[in-house]
């Protein structure tokens, strides 16, 4: 699911990256195209400018030539008009030296004077010369005529001209451009070519008469007339060419030419190349940038995935440890019950034989507990939460424990258990006795498991090896030798792997977690010790542990078994029955059922219990009364137990600054205890609270002067009534449970021990359902996950108490999910959705239970038939009394009165009021009690 989603996210990201990349590329291409055309355009304009300049330069050349011709004629003309006769000779001389051109002179009226005479019709320049202008005319097929007037005084007297026949024009006036790559010709206004361009030695006129070229030149004309020169690019067949034109000053001709674009562009192309290169670099940079961006994106994505994965891992780890904790919790509770019962037997039975049995039960139970503990231990080791104590212990006690357990086991098998303990070993050592015991037990139980005949030997020896600091220490060498099946050499290395059980074929009947050796090795490592194995397959194995321990009491152990007997013969501490009616304690728990349970469990001690359902109430109450003890639930909405206690301790009134406080918690890990002690608690109790443990706590922490031994006060008649009523209650409850079906009476009574308490608890549970369900629903809707989780947590425990284990299970699951959600900062929408869904289911079940209970509670009033009806007067007297007690907050007295009322049949008119009153009394809601009674 997450992977798919991740994939989808990745795809979307990739698409986004590619899309933005594509857009960038497109933009770049557009810019590139624009840039290209822009640069091209700029260069063309530049080149055209150059073309124009070239044309101007060329036209200047031609113009100079023409001017030169005209000037030379004008020189002749000026001489000619002054000294006529000499000039004719000069003309003759000129003509003689020039074989190509012909010089001529005619009078204004056309009369020939020298050389050939030309007609004005052919050469209009003659007419212009007659009118006093120098002029040049071209006549197609004939040639070019330069013509100047010869003045006498101010009037035109002669016209002098020089004629160049058409075939020599190029040789005399031809120009070449661009090193011969271009073609230039001179045309007149009618686009007739006067001086042709030449190519391959032949004059060329064709190109200049082509339509494209003519059009091109036409296009240039306006600019030509405006500025004297022009140039433009045209496409000619395959080649791009630049056409250019310029007026030839002093004539009606103009110069036209073309040159292949490639020639003009020579060198300019490098500019284009540079631009292209720069652009390419730009594109490359964008690519690079895009690539880096994509990489960054991918990396970000990866780290996100990694985060998601690690979240999953954390969750699964959390789920695992939760599972382990829960399992241990679930299993330990009944075992504790068994052991507790057994303890009572041990305490109360005088029959030695029964005591022996009971002891065996105790051992077996403890053994079972140790398996659970193994699992818990291992999870602690895995989580790195295993803690090693450093406290004084007695080795002999451990050995006795261990031996008695192993002896029990060995008894069912045909093997001998031999202990060989060096009597000089110091008995008092520092260390974690529990763990050493655990390690020994692990090795021994393994030995028992795998040995079918022969013997098991526990050998203890060691050496006094003081520490460098001079502290007395002892190196313990503990070895366990068996004559069992042994271990193959190749399996020895696998031995300490978790869940590893070697040689499965042979051992498939052997039970166990397979964790023992792994735990042993780990624990030993933690204690600075080591373990070694020697084994011969089929013959047996020896496990040897070495461990340094500081000596606390250098008293040799001697025969440890004697010490065991001593312990055994000493009477086991009896569960002391006591009463403490003058003691007053504060119990804080958001789940009213739990408060009810505590009250119920302490009922026979007479201890006065003030309930508070939240931290704020508790603080207020603690300001009013000096309590002898405070019981504080940890998980509560708004303000948790630690915080509440802090407020109580730091309160200005300071009434409970030193009052012992006991944390109530479902947390099974050991470090939890320390955490609470650090937070200022005096001690802690595991939930659900067992009666014995609670009583013991009271005994331990209540002021000694308030504790009276049982029987020192007159027996409360109520107790008897309760007992009598107890059996009736039990029957009734069983009936209720039968009718409802989904609840387990057995489970409930396991926690309650008392039908009376159970009934009160169940009623409370029933009344809580609707408001509680609404609250859970509301909190989830409001996204208040913290308080939602706390509420669900409350439901989990209260449901378990009344035996609604399925409901409790669901609530528990939701509690975990709620915790996870809080951890992940509500980001995980999948989890959120599942929480919402499952909450709906839970609430449906929860409310369903309300309906079922309602049906029962409404018909259970059959007791009333039997009971005698209470009169209205009597009832009102009781009301007044309750009101009075309420004013001094005497809940006990009110309870008594209420019980009396409940025992009777209540007249119909008062039923409603009574029910309401009962509810408020149960909730200890003083204001409501008063309001109900006064109306």
């Amino acid at each position: 699911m997450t992977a798919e989603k991740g994939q989808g996210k990745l795809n979307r990201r990739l698409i986004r990256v590619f899309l933005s990349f594509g857009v960038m590329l497109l933009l770049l291409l557009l810019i590139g195209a624009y840039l290209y055309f822009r640069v091209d355009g700029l260069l063309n304009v530049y080149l055209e400018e150059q073309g124009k300049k070239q044309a101007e330069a060329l036209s200047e050349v031609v113009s100079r030539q023409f001017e030169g011709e005209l000037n030379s004629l004008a020189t002749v003309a000026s001489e000619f008009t002054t000294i006529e006769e000499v000039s004719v000779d000069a003309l003759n001389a000129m003509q003689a030296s020039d074989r190509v051109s012909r010089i001529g002179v005619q009078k204004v009226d056309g009369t020939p004077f020298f050389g050939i005479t030309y007609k004005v019709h052919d050469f209009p320049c003659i007419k212009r010369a007659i009118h006093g202008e120098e002029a040049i005319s071209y006549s197609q097929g004939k040639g070019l005529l330069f013509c100047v007037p010869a003045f006498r005084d101010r009037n035109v007297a002669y016209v002098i001209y020089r004629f160049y026949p058409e075939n020599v024009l190029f040789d005399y006036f031809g120009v070449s451009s661009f090193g011969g790559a271009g073609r230039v010709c001179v045309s007149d206004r009618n686009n007739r070519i006067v001086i042709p361009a030449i190519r391959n030695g032949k004059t060329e006129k064709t190109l200049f008469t082509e339509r494209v070229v003519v059009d091109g030149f036409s296009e240039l004309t306006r600019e030509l007339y405006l500025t004297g020169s022009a140039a433009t690019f045209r496409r000619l067949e395959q080649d791009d060419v630049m056409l250019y034109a310029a007026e030839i000053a002093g004539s009606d001709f103009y110069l036209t030419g073309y040159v292949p674009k490639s020639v003009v562009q020579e060198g300019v192309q490098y500019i284009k190349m540079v631009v292209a290169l720069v652009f390419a670099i730009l594109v490359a940079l964008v690519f690079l940038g895009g690539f880096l961006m994509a990489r960054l994106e991918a990396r970000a994505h990866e780290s996100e995935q990694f985060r998601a994965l690690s979240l999953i891992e954390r969750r699964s780890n959390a789920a695992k440890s939760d599972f382990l904790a829960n399992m241990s919790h679930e299993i330990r509770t009944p075992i504790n019950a068994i052991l507790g019962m057994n303890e009572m037997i041990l305490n109360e039975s005088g029959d030695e034989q029964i005591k022996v049995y009971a002891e065996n039960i105790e051992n077996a139970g403890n053994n079972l507990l140790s398996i659970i503990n193994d699992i818990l231990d291992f999870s602690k080791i895995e989580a790195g939460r295993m803690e090693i104590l450093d406290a004084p212990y007695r080795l002999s006690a451990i050995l006795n424990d261990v031996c008695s357990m192993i002896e029990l086991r060995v008894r069912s098998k045909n093997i001998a258990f031999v202990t060989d303990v060096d009597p000089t070993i110091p008995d008092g050592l520092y260390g974690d006795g529990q763990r050493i015991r655990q390690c020994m037990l692990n090795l021994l139980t393994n030995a028992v498991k795998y040995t079918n005949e022969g013997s098991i030997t526990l050998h203890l020896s060691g050496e006094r090896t003081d520490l460098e600091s001079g502290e007395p220490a002892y190196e313990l060498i503990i070895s366990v030798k068996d004559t069992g099946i042994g271990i193959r050499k190749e399996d020895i290395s696998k031995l300490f792997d978790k869940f590893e059980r070697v040689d499965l074929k042979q051992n498939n009947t052997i039970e166990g977690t397979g964790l023992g050796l792994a735990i042993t090795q780990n624990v030993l490592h933690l204690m600075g010790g080591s373990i070694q194995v020697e084994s011969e397959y089929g013959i047996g194995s020896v496990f040897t542990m070495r461990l340094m321990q500081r000596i606390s009491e250098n008293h040799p152990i001697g025969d440890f078994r004697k010490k065991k007997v001593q312990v055994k013969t000493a009477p086991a501490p009896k569960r002391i029955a006591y009463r403490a009616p003058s003691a007053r304690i504060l119990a804080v728990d958001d789940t009213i059922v739990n408060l009810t349970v505590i009250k119920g469990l302490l009922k026979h001690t007479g201890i006065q219990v003030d309930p508070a359902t939240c931290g704020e109430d508790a603080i207020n109450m603690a300001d009013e009364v000096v309590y002898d003890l405070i019981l504080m639930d940890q998980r509560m909405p708004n303000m948790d137990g630690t915080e509440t206690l802090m407020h109580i301790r730091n309160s200005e009134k300071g009434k409970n600054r030193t009052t012992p406080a006991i944390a109530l918690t479902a947390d099974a890990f050991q470090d939890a205890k320390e955490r609470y002690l650090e937070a200022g608690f005096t001690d802690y109790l595991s939930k659900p609270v067992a009666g014995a443990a609670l009583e013991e706590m009271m005994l331990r922490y209540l002021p000694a002067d308030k504790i009276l031994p049982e029987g020192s006060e007159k027996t409360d008649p109520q107790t008897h009534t309760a007992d009598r009523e107890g059996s009736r209650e039990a029957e009734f409850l069983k009936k209720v449970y039968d009718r409802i079906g989904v609840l387990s009476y057995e489970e409930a009574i396991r926690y309650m021990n008392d039908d009376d308490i159970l009934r009160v608890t169940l009623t409370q549970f029933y009344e809580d359902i609707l408001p509680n369900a609404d609250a859970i629903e509301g909190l989830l809707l409001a996204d208040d996950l913290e308080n939602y989780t706390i509420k669900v947590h409350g439901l989990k425990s209260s449901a378990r108490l009344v035996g609604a284990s399925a409901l409790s299970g669901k609530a528990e699951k939701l509690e975990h999910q709620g915790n996870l959600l809080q951890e992940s900062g509500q980001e995980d929408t999948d989890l959120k959705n599942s929480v919402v869904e499952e909450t709906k289911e839970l609430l449906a079940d929860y409310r369903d239970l309300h309906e079922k209970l309602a049906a029962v509670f409404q018909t259970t009033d059959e007791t009333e038939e039997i009971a005698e009806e209470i009169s209205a007067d009597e009832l009102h007297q009781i009301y007044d009394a309750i009101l009075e007690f309420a004013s001094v907050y005497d809940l006990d007295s009110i309870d008594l009165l209420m019980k009396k009322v409940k025992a009777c049949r209540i007249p119909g008119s008062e039923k409603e009021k009574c029910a309401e009153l009962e509810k408020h009394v149960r909730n200890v809601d003083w204001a409501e009690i008063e309001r109900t009674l006064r109306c």
Partner: protein
Amino acid sequence: MKKTYFIILGIIICFLAGLFLIQLTMRKADAETEDKKIALLMNGSRDDLSYCQAQYEGMRRYELGSGATVTYYDNVQPDERFTKLVKELITAGYGIIVCDSYVYEPLILELAEQYPDIYFLNATGTQSAGNYCSYLGRVYQVRYLTGIVAGKSTKTNKIGYIIASPTPETIRQANAFTIGVRKVNPDAVVYVRYTNNWNNDKIAQTVTRKLIKEQEIDVLTLQTNTIMPLKVADENGILTIGNNRDNHELFPDTYLTACVFDWSPFFADRISECNRNRLIGKHYWEGMDTGLVEMAPMTDLVDEGTKQIVEEETAKIIEGSYDIFFGPVFDAKGTERVRRGENLPDSELLTHMDWYVEGVDAK
């Protein structure tokens, strides 16, 4: 991410802005022909039966023949009103402004510089610009021919010539006329009288009447914008030779011929050049060879022999082998201004003619 986009966008915008800052002086390469709207602005009235009417009719003929759009304005004063009108026309989309007098030239030169995309054409101007073209006709060539007609037609050998004022232009024309007269009638005298006003009928009438009273003239021609002198002559049974426009229908009993313009082909050529953006901004001085100036058909009052001579002379002029001021030319004081075999250059003709030829009696 968003920040990166903004940076990239900024770079691109800077880049584009930079590209646009490199301004291209893009040349207008519009070689295509477009029919520009034309306005003709005249300094007289379009029905003056003379110069302005000749302009008007010439343009009108062009307009009808080409389908161009022409708007005509009469009596446009050569001051800020002219400038204002031209600007309005340009705003209204007119592309060619045609004027008919040298009086507008200074204003036109300013406007031509201001509006390089608008073409200006102006008759009798002498300057030019890239988009301004001025033109004159070599009317003197026609004057020479009408002079031949006059010389042949006079019995008294006295010919009247009413001129608004003596300028190189009017003197040149009077001289050419006189050369024509004396070519066929060496004893004839041309009496030139000035009105000192181009348009005033009353003055023209008075001056003409005075001339008739003083001299026994039997042929009269003129160079004024009013045709009053012709009217007076006609009333007195004196033969008339017109100018600018052929008015033979007005004076059927006395009209011999006239110097006329045919502006239409010239307008057609120039406007076509403008439409193709090919106008050459220069000064034209067009003679009979281009057809801008010509002689009106001679009436039946002119005999065939005279017509023969005129045709021969016309051919020579058009061909270019003869021009009016070929020597010998003597001035009124008997000085030889142009020797045989010589010619007066255009520069002299156009701006320096301040003398009358032999045979002119100018007062």
